[in-house]
């Protein structure tokens, strides 16, 4: 039920109404942001053959895209603070679309690194940050649910993009597929159009009264301070959140990378081993909104940080038990639990940050968090590969 907007004091977030359209927009935007780097790997074999380079060189495209997406966080936060979410998501969508279209004409690997990796990554960075910010502006009472629904975009879009990419590859080759994928990413502009900006009535009056010049100057000064606000490190909660996240992300992506290989080493057919990841993704799709719903309940909401810790521990225990599993049915069960754990963590990861930092500081905080998370995300899977260990680290995190 939409909360009534009271005009004479600070307006509370809508918690409904147009907010659900905003959640849809965020869902699309976040979906493209997380799914695209993974779904692109379907094209790599073809590109590798045509450009005559090694597979690891080609795989760098995804890594660069993810790295730039996370590293672009602070810039994205600053822009969102200045201009709001809508223009930024639309700009992000345009950049992503353009990056894919120009990449389809590429004939060297470095060209692809620049187009898809750098420009595409920047576009996705703008999308991600702006989508998360606008959810915090539109929702308060139902924010965990809204976050869960928006973050569910990642497995949904991966589920949708993977077979689509395969089909496009067979019909049009990798160049045509990148062209069409670019057009699809322009749908982020539609998502941006849905993200109607929010203004409280007092701010509207302020705009009408002044001629605008002094307020803009104040705005600039404030935004420079907010760009990379290192005062966040004074906040104990923030630091603990950051450390816990770094440890989690270092270990979280390795099982995804190695799950099929581990299954094959246990004697499972390659085709069935690939199914395991699909199972995990499918479960993830439903767990994220489900977790949001649970986190929204009146027993969990005040203790959402503990719920987040529980989710991380659950993940860790799941992976610790993995080496005991040797048969395919048990591997399926493991994949299901993995999906549950992974979904729970990612549904809550930004909700907890919003809870910790509050609406005003969230955009800058998320920019800082993503640029720092960039490092473990890139180092995690190769490090796990080097140590040849299928057990991932257990992450324990407590919030006071």
């Amino acid at each position, binding site marked *: 039920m*939409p909360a*009534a*907007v009271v*005009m004479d004091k*600070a*307006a509370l977030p*809508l918690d409904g*109404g*147009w907010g659900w359209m905003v959640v849809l927009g965020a869902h699309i935007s976040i979906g493209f942001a997380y799914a695209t780097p993974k779904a692109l790997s379907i094209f790599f074999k073809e590109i590798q*053959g*045509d450009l*005559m380079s090694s597979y690891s060189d080609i795989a760098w495209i995804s890594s660069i895209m993810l790295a730039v997406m996370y590293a672009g966080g602070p810039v994205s936060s600053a822009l969102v*603070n*200045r*201009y*709001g*979410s809508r*223009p930024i998501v639309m700009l992000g969508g345009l950049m992503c679309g353009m990056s894919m279209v120009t990449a389809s004409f590429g004939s060297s690997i470095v060209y692809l690194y620049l187009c898809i990796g750098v420009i595409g990554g920047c576009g996705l960075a703008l999308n991600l940050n702006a989508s998360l910010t606008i959810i915090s*502006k539109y929702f*308060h*009472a139902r924010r965990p649910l809204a976050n869960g629904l928006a973050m569910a975009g990642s497995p949904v879009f991966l589920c949708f993009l993977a077979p689509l990419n395969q089909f496009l*590859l*067979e*019909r*049009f*080759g990798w*160049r*045509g*597929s990148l*062209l*069409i994928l*670019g*057009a*699809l990413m*322009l*749908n982020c*502009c*539609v998502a941006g*159009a849905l993200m*109607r*900006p929010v*203004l*409280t*009535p*007092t*701010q*509207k009056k302020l*705009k009408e009264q002044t001629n605008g010049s002094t307020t803009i100057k104040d*705005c600039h000064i*404030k935004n420079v301070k907010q760009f990379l606000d290192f005062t966040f490190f004074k906040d104990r909660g923030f630091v603990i959140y950051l450390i816990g996240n770094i440890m989690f992300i270092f270990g979280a992506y390795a099982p995804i990378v190695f799950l099929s290989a581990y299954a094959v080493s246990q004697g499972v057919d390659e085709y069935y081993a690939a199914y395991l990841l699909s199972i995990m993704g499918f479960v993830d799709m439903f767990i994220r909104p489900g977790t949001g719903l649970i986190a*929204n309940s*009146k027993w969990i*909401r*005040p203790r959402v940080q503990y719920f987040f810790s529980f989710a991380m521990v659950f993940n860790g225990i799941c992976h610790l038990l993995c080496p005991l599993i040797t048969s395919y049915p048990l591997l399926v069960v493991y994949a299901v639990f993995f999906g549950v754990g992974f979904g729970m963590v990612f549904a809550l990861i930004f909700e907890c940050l919003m*809870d*910790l930092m*509050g*609406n*005003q*500081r969230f955009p800058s905080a998320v920019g800082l968090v993503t640029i720092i998370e960039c490092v473990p995300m890139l180092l995690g899977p190769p490090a796990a590969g080097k140590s040849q260990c299928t057990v991932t680290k257990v992450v324990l995190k407590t919030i006071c």
Partner: protein
Amino acid sequence: MSAPCMHPSCLLLLLLVVCRHAHTNLVSVTENTTVTTEPPVETLSPITPPVAPLTPLQTGQKSVVLTGENHTEKVEVVNPVTLNLECVWTGDNKRLPNITGYWTKDGKTIESSYSNTQLQNDRYYLRKEFSIMSEEDLGTYSCIFGPKAKVDFILAAPYLGEMRDKPIVSYVGDSVVMICKMDEKKSKPINWNWYKHNGTSKEKIEVDSPGHRYKITKDEKKTKLVVHNLTESDSGVYFCGAVYGIGTSMGHMQLRVITYFEPLKPFLGILVEVLVLVAVILLYEKTGSKKENQSGPEGNPDQTSNLSHGENAVADGHSGTARQRKV
């Protein structure tokens, strides 16, 4: 061994035995040497000695013990060879002392191959020697015990590794790389050839054809065909052949050359959809806010107005640092 004798035919036989044993590579499983069971050579005259083959002809041996009713054995043949195939059958419940066995090639019975086999050491044996000289001699050879048991020997040149079954798609003016690989474990071919199917037959691709559009690289177990400046007529089926002493092993793949217009159509379609949706959403918002302005500020609680600065200090000041725990 036969006792030395001075009779011409005896000398001839001795000469044959010596030549034969000189060329045998593998040990024969059977205890009886092939010499004693082989019929005497009648085609050669006593005066001229037998002509030894120019390259040493290898002999090979393949033996299969059949316990059930059927078995299939793949035999890789690389060079011309004289192959001894042997089938050993453990028999069925009846244990007849004599069974008729015969050989077939590609389903057709070899007339001279009928023989009665006797139960020896509780097994039935069928043996035959085949000369595999060229590609026509390759195929499926089967030994059949009465109506009951059968062993198929599939004689073929080494198969090519996994071939791509989906067509390769490329664009006009672009270049494409086609690769054929032989498995690591199999023997390497003498040469590689590339052919293009031109409607009726395979036409060999020469590197120095007009236009210099083709480039063929040959490694030991891998070959690449690069075609530059593709045109639509380059579409079709391409064959790569691994040349061995016995024949050529073929693999095929399909190439499709399309113009940029093909993916452009869905691209433009999606672009139009995006523009339409964005226009609809923004128009809806504009008409919604116009209604609000007309009806005054105490309007629809669902409406919001526009400013996008982060000046939420007034709104969020109280919640900037406090945790939002109240639902």
